[in-house]
């Protein structure tokens, strides 16, 4: 069995997933966090045997659907614009405001487009490992490239010195996903290099 930490997280229970939202509607961010917890709760083993594949693939596909729903909800939230939403596409770096990289240190509004990429990369990896798919790998590489370019822009704009620790962490999560789950070794290394530049060093173990 694999080691997980999120499954032991104190908010990773059914009660904490539903009761606090009884009087409000979950936002796109909340649904995406549910997905991440759900992934961590999957009983994934290193085995790629048929039984394991049959059991896991439908669950992972359902989680991909949940990510798609969260993305759709985020698009609606952006249109309503009762509060600030970041643009969906991360690929137009030169058009974006510095705020996209620098704000959000209160952990109330993560850079959600980056988180969507990160969660998809993670799920694609888990699916591809059991049911290899060229399309899925290609999409994963494209999303990883998008995240790396996004993180790179922080340095080309010389914003890294202004980054507060909270905002920094919001970049760290997507970069960690790239460093772990990119199908491409050089992308994994590049993610690790950027993490080091941000002051995050790789620990040997959990």
């Amino acid at each position, binding site marked *: 069995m*694999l080691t997980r930490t999120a499954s032991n997280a*104190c908010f990773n229970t059914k009660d904490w997933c539903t009761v606090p939202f009884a009087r409000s509607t979950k936002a796109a961010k*909340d649904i995406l966090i549910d997905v991440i917890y759900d992934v961590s709760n999957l009983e*994934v083993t290193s085995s790629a045997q048929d039984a394991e594949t049959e059991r896991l693939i439908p669950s992972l596909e359902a989680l991909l659907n949940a990510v798609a729903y969260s993305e759709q909800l985020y698009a609606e939230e952006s249109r309503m614009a009762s509060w600030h939403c970041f643009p969906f596409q991360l690929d137009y770096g030169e058009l974006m405001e510095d705020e996209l990289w620098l*704000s959000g240190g209160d*952990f*109330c509004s993560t850079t959600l487009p980056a988180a969507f990429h990160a969660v998809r990369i993670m799920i694609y990896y888990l699916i591809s490992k059991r049911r290899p798919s060229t399309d899925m790998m290609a999409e994963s590489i494209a999303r990883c490239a998008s995240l790396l370019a996004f993180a790179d822009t922080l340095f080309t704009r010389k914003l890294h010195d202004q980054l507060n620790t909270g905002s920094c962490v919001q970049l760290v999560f997507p970069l960690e996903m790239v460093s772990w789950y990119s199908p491409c070794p050089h992308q994994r290394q590049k993610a690790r290099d950027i993490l080091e530049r941000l002051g995050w060093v790789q620990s*040997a173990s*959990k």
Partner: protein
Amino acid sequence: MFFVHAARGSNHVVNHTEITYNTKEGEFPTKPSEQPLFEQSMIATFITCFSAASKPGRANTQSWTQYLFSWINCSSTAWPVRAVTLLFYGQKSKQDSLCQEADKCYARALEIQRGRIRRHIKRSTETEDTPTELPSEQDISASLMLMYYELLSPSFIGSWMMHFKACCQLLVLRGPENCQDGPCHVMFRSLRLMMVSFTGLVCDDKD
């Protein structure tokens, strides 16, 4: 395999002498406050830099930072809020004297918060006959502020985790049914996101 933050906050937060803001001019919250102007200015700086793009003149309604002005007016949360906002302002403006003053505020806030947490721990281990007093919004927000202090100026690598765990445990003691609205709901959503970001996550199912 996971990543830990190894850089001291004060080393990389600021690299220039002037105070700069992430958002456009005029986007500070405009809620009137009886606090001294310098405290309002420090809180406004913190909100502007930490809260994702509020609308002009308004604090982000999705963020707990909207409650900072009320927390600074409350005797039990004033010290932690003062410590964090003063430290951040001091770091941004590169004024060591402000950072030193923030250290004093932090020491005082820490002492008060330790007493509170001790009370909650004692109560949680007492008999069932003892009436339960739930952690208040102030208890949780004080720990949250202390956590940000350690994020900005770590006593040692990962020192903020103590306050993070304290925050989460106080919320757990409060219970999900008491986090459905208001500041506790917003803080819960924020800490839930942090939990996902920081707990490393998911699989060692890697090559």
